[in-house]
């Protein structure tokens, strides 16, 4: 695997941010046993900025490390789910041909971002939910209810926070590009 030092550090910092943003006291409780975590927005942003591989590893390592070091046991199925969410949202730079890096963030790109967030959460945590029914014999209706709430909640959180952050990021990039264009 040929990762640059920069990628390694970005994965590490992203995973640490994901870990902090996933702590229960920073979450917004919306339903019993389900909180909206700022971590999801961190994961979405790092995936959008650095692509699928970084997205997957930020989700996977970040979730694994939070679970391990917060001491409530490792819930492997959901660790894998977070990785897949990052992987799918990480398709964004490929699909938009890196427009964000050039400081462009149109409403069309925003729509794509929301769709990717929804698909990512549904597929990623869908895998977790299915694995839970197989590996932990959880009732199908229960995991489906959990999945619906999580996917919907996460998508709204990612959309709102992502919109604000990506607009700010595009503006920042545009400012540094004006020099070469002028």
């Amino acid at each position, binding site marked *: 695997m040929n990762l640059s030092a920069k990628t*390694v550090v970005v994965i590490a910092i992203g995973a640490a941010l994901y870990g902090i943003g996933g702590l229960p006291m920073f979450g917004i409780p919306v339903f019993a046993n389900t909180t909206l975590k700022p971590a999801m927005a961190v994961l979405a942003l790092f995936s959008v900025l650095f692509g699928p591989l970084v997205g997957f590893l930020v989700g996977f390592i970040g979730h694994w490390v939070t679970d391990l070091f917060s001491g409530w046991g490792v819930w492997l199925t959901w660790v894998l789910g977070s990785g897949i969410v990052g992987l799918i949202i990480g398709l964004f730079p490929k699909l938009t041909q890196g427009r964000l890096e050039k400081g462009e963030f149109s409403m069309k790109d925003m729509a794509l971002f929301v769709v990717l967030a929804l698909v990512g959460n549904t597929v990623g945590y869908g895998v977790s939910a299915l694995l839970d029914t197989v590996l932990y014999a959880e009732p199908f209706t229960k995991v489906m209810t959990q999945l619906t709430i999580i996917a919907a909640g996460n998508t709204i959180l990612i959309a709102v926070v992502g919109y604000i952050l990506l607009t700010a990021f595009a503006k920042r990039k545009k400012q540094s590009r004006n020099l070469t264009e002028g």
Partner: protein
Amino acid sequence: MQNNTNSESTLNKSAANKSNMNKNTVNNDIKKKHKSSINKTKKIDFGINYVNTNSALHQLNGVTKFVLFLAWVTVVLTTFDLRLILALIITGCTLLKLTKVPFSVYKPLLIATASVLSINALFMFLLAPQQGVEYIGSSTVLLPLWGDYSLTQETLYYLLTVTLKYFSMFPIALVFVFTTHPTEFAASLNRLGVPYKIAYAVSLTLRYLPDVKNDFVNIMHAQQARGVDLSKNVSVLSRIKNVAKILGPLIFSSLDRADEISNAMTLRGFGHNNKRTWYSLKPMTKQDYTVMGLIVLVVTLAIIKRVMATELFWYPF
């Protein structure tokens, strides 16, 4: 969530904690942790850490402990046999005892995990009250209730098995974190075939967790002082928007920091070679091989048992 008064007292307390930092024996540390878990500082404590008590488990190689952890996960995931699950929990708690880490360190975690698992079990019952009957194939009503919600012996048994199955992961995760130094953890990952850049990313993650946490708390306090409300007093949507006001500065400053770190690493030649050695990698001892042999045996037996078994749940009644 914290409101402004709350965070003020947290600040004071963490300052007080810092001034006490000088006396630094393990026991003192642990006591302080316990103390802080009672007051509000707990809210921003990040879970558990490596505690060096020099127990027999600390002597074992990180590779062995990581293999034990993976083997544990494999066995837990493949079994629905209550006897095996109970054996795992007892072994896990014995190992936890062997780490010589005082119970008070992980007591709050135990309570938190137990309550999360109970709520989980409650939801499983509320959304699928007859799941146990379906799996086990008989129905003994203990307490007739309205509709589908009659409490059956099978459902109770099923909920108990699944909840304990989840719980059996709890002690081993603690044992692993308490006894394995973070850099040795990264070295072990590499030794087991994970590419060294990924292993190094894991190690860096652990290194920067406390720093990033401090940044997060500082930015949160700064924004709260400017009137950004994260408490229940505002609607969910504005809370989400306010989260963005914290994450923005946090992520952008972290990206700048990532630049600095990666420049420093490049200057020191990180990633130049295909292989990397680890200072903290210990050689394997005879004990390690004995434990490894035992692990392989148990995992093989567990898998054979799963393949041979005719029904998923072991149900004696």
